[in-house]
């Protein structure tokens, strides 16, 4: 503590340089915190159905291929399955193409048993079931478009040749997903003239331990049929969805590491300059009795503090920034419930600590090992 004034005064002796270094580190850690939070967001989305004992059944050929309704009855007969529901990705948008979000047709009477984590008040669910054109929407969507219960909304279809005309009958609550829209499969079938095929079945399994075996049984059942299936857990399904846009995790992690490596180098240059300017002062400190260890400790503390300041400013700054920015709207529904979490802030601060140690290590060691006589000779 008694050295704190010495450290702090040295830290800000060149205010412009210290300010720019902190600003640079803060900007990069803001960027890193954003990338890590996007990955977090994907991970959360992938984990949203964890523990819900749900399996998704899709065509083994591709997600775009449909499965016949007849599959559903055969799947339901497998032991351990308590409920099944059809689900169709509709891919419609609201008013303008940029207003794109997840919208699905589902079996209205089965939804509450298969997707029991989507909580809807009883009266709203009853109203949804009674209205063939009823829809249940997420609170994020309702807020984004100003929808309220009783509103009539018209979506524009992109995949299927019809524009769903829907009545908002309920607003669901969900731990992660706040921006999806569900409407009745019956309305979808009516609009398309009873297609007899659907994109996916979702299956509720009674026992979590049986998920793997049920999954294998479903695929085995249709392996030699004209419409083979591929069954996923919800997490696998989400990950498959995300992987369609490439190996995001590898890309973001690599970019984050490159950014951090860059600030290690920039930090090392700045800190070397700072140490070089103080050669005589360090020699004086050594002369009056400061040991090598003391000099190393003082210099390293100073450099680490600078990096921590930048790291914390960037990570906390990102946390505050994204509280006030509607990322769902900004990313057209791609990122929902986006924010910089506590663990991400901690990770950034820990990375900043590493940056401080790495970039300050060499100049601090060189300063500590400076010959007193040589150091004094620079000026004396």
């Amino acid at each position: 503590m008694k050295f704190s004034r010495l450290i702090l005064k040295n830290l800000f002796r060149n205010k412009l340089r210290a300010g720019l270094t902190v600003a640079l580190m803060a900007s990069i850690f803001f960027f890193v915190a954003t990338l890590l939070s996007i990955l977090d967001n994907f991970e959360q989305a992938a984990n949203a159905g964890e523990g819900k004992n749900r399996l998704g059944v899709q065509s083994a050929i591709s997600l775009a291929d449909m499965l016949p309704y007849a599959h559903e009855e055969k799947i339901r007969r497998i032991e351990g399955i308590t409920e099944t529901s059809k689900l169709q990705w509709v891919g419609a948008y609201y008013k303008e193409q940029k207003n794109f979000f997840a919208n699905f047709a589902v079996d209205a009477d089965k939804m509450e048993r298969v997707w029991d984590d989507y909580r809807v008040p009883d009266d709203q669910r009853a109203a949804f079931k009674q209205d063939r054109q009823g829809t249940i929407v997420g609170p994020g969507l309702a807020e984004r478009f100003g929808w309220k219960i009783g509103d009539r909304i018209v979506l524009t279809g992109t995949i299927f040749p019809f524009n769903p005309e829907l009545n908002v009958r309920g607003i669901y609550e969900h731990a992660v997903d706040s921006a999806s829209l569900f409407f009745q499969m019956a309305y979808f079938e009516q609009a398309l003239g009873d297609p007899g095929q659907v994109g996916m079945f979702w299956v509720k399994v009674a026992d979590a331990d049986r998920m793997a075996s049920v999954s294998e049984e479903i695929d085995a059942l249709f392996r030699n049929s004209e419409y083979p299936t591929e069954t996923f857990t919800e997490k696998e399904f989400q990950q498959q969805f995300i992987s369609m846009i490439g190996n995001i995790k590898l890309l973001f992690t690599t970019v984050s590491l490159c950014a951090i490596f860059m600030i290690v180098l920039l930090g090392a240059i700045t800190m070397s300059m700072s140490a070089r300017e103080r050669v005589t002062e360090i020699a004086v400190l050594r002369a009056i009795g400061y040991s090598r260890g003391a000099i190393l400790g003082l210099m390293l503390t100073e450099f680490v503090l600078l990096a921590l300041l930048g790291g914390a400013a960037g990570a906390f700054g990102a946390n505050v920034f994204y509280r006030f920015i509607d990322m769902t709207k900004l990313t057209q529904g791609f990122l929902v419930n986006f924010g910089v979490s506590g663990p991400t802030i901690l990770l950034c601060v820990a990375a900043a600590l590493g940056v401080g140690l790495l970039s300050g290590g060499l100049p601090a060691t060189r300063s500590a090992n400076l010959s007193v006589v040589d150091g004094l000779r620079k000026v004396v």
Partner: protein
Amino acid sequence: MTALVTIDNVHKSYQRDEFEIRVLNGLTLEVPAGDFLALMGPSGSGKSTLLNLIAGIDRPTSGRVVVGGKEISTLGESKLASWRARHVGFIFQMYNLIPVLTAYENVELPLLLTRLTRKERRSHVEAALGIVGLGDRMQHYPRQLSGGQEQRVAIARAIVTDPTIIVADEPTGDLDAASAHEILDLLQNLNREFTKTIMMVTHDPRAAERARHVLHLDKGVLIEQVEGLVPGGTSEA
């Protein structure tokens, strides 16, 4: 009088590329406690090197350096740093104050290495700045002080730990005549009233006149043994 500093057949040479530069050649000397010794000589004569050896910031190539009964030439780096903190006060030609610290904080620097409490440190710093006549400039930064005042702060920093010996390397070399006069008065006062042992390197004969004894070095050997110092002289050229 008891010898505070004993230099016994000390050699010091530096290696510069393929050349060996011999700076001190078998120098032997004893300095009694309470002395004020001026070291004079042309550039390259070895006077600053001798001062550095006595101050424990350099080591002899061979020979013994004993200060206050302790042979410092054999101490390890860490022990030598602790020894300097306790026993040596430094005064440099260019003052070498830390520019971002106030006069008070500069003087407090050596005390941060001790176990003194904040209150005790304050009392020591105030006393030291009082001795050098800067009790009213404690919160001033070096840039807000004149050269003479900066050097007085440096002297306060040198005496604040009550060291065994004060080493001064050209303490008036960067000052005008009036300021130099004040600094020499101060050093003389520290020697006479506070019985501080002072070793000073200088080129200035007027500064050397203030010392009790003057030694002349040339090419690493003592060329004049001034009365009052215990004889030892040079062993070889």
